[in-house]
Each structure stands twice: as C-alpha cells, then as structure tokens.
C-alpha cells in the first residue's frame, strides 16, 4: 500500500487514498466545512461584539455569565451551540483516530482506539449539554 504508484493512488476515491473508509472521511469534511461557518459566528458573537461593552464597563469582563445567559434566550443560539459542541468533538476526535490509523492502527487496535475516543466524546458531549443548560437557571 505504502509503495503504491502515484498514478494508482490518484485513481482511488479520496477516502481510500488516505486509508480511511467513506463515512469517517465524508463526515470529517462535512463537519469541517460547517465548523468554519459555526466558529466564525461563535467568534463574532461571543468574542468580538462584546469587546466594546467590556471597554466601556457595561460588562465587567469579556465572558460574563448573565451575558451568556441572555444569548441563550435566542433559540438559534441553542442550535449553534449544540452543533458546535457535537461537530467539534466529532471532528477533533475523529482526527485523532485518523492519526492512529496513519501510525498503523487496524483491527482490534483501531476498535480500542475508536471505542476510547467515542467514550471521551460522549462524556464531553453530555457534560457540555449540562454546562450549556446551566446558563438557563
């Protein structure tokens, strides 16, 4: 595989060329492209628009609980937050799995790596949902 001629590799589907199967490859691209847009919104809304308010002392800091809680009154902010949480966790942890595959993980090793990363992702997702929900109180 490693010695495969360049021309033969070019004939392969993109996922196979990188030693991946279709769905992880496809979802990595979809979540990646979506994260570009979601993160742009995240940075503008959470970290850019409140700079002036922090400068003028309207906010007593850059990240303030009551200010975040206000944003959660908009349903769209929930959608963006949950999409960010799930997409970023999948994209990051699937990326780590891709590195493991590059270093030769397959079969039982790949299963163990994938299982461990899935557990980390699931735990972080559940904790993240609780963290977001706390802003409602």
């Amino acid at each position: 595989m490693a010695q495969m001629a360049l021309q033969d590799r070019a004939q392969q589907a993109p996922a196979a060329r990188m030693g991946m199967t279709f769905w992880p490859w496809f979802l990595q691209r979809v979540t990646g492209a979506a994260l570009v847009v979601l993160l742009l919104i995240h940075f503008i809304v959470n970290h850019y628009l409140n700079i002036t308010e922090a400068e003028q002392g309207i906010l007593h800091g850059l990240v303030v609980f009551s200010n975040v809680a206000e944003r959660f009154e908009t349903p769209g902010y929930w959608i963006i937050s949950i999409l960010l949480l799930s997409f970023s966790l999948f994209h990051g942890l699937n990326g780590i799995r891709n590195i493991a595959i590059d270093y030769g993980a397959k079969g039982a090793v790949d299963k163990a790596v994938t299982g461990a990363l899935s557990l980390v992702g699931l735990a972080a997702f559940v904790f993240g949902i609780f963290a977001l929900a706390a802003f409602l109180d």
Partner: protein
Amino acid sequence: MYKPLDAQFQARAMRTGTVAWLLQRLSGVFITVYLITHIIVIGNSVRGEDAFDDLLSTFDKPFFLVLDAGLLGVVAFHAMNGLRLILFDFTVGLRYQKMMFWAAFLVAVGMFIGSVIAVRNLF
C-alpha cells in the same frame, strides 16, 4: 497512505506540502486538546454565576488575550488549510497548492494581528 513522521522527514526535504501536512496535524491535535479544556472551563457554569464569573475574569489579563488571539490564528490556519484539503480531495486547485498554503498562513497571521488590535484597549 501517509508514512510515519520520521519517514516523511527522511524521504524528502521539508517542502510546502509537508509543512502544510505537519502544521495541519499539529494544529488539529492542539485544537482538540484546547476544545476539551474549553468545555471543562465553560462547564464551570454548573457551579453557578459567581464561581463562573470569578474564574473567567482571570482570563481577561493581557497575557491570556494575546494567547486567545494566537488560538484564533491557529484555528484560522487549520480552517483555511482544511478548506484547501477538501478542494484537493476533489482534485481542484492542485496546481496552486503552494499559493493556497501561503494564503491560509496569511489569513492566520492576519487574524492574530487583527485580534490583538481589536482588544488593544483592554490591555
């Protein structure tokens, strides 16, 4: 298929494509570690408003603001270079791969400098 890291270095000098591949991988691992940290830090919301504001105010110092700007730069590079890689999956733009790497790099540097300028009054 990718070769292991040391084999990559031995096989060829550090050309633009190799540098881009390496930076994408390092930035990806870094951002994932940051992401988990970020979820834990913001997760302090479960401890209530006062505890949350108390903790988050420690990050309003110039040192952390510059780190934040650096983080945004790293994320911007990973995002722009990621879009470049998606194009390559569909064999689009391969002829301009070096130029597109430097474009991604410039966007990242621009975002870093722009962010530092944006928060300058908070220093």
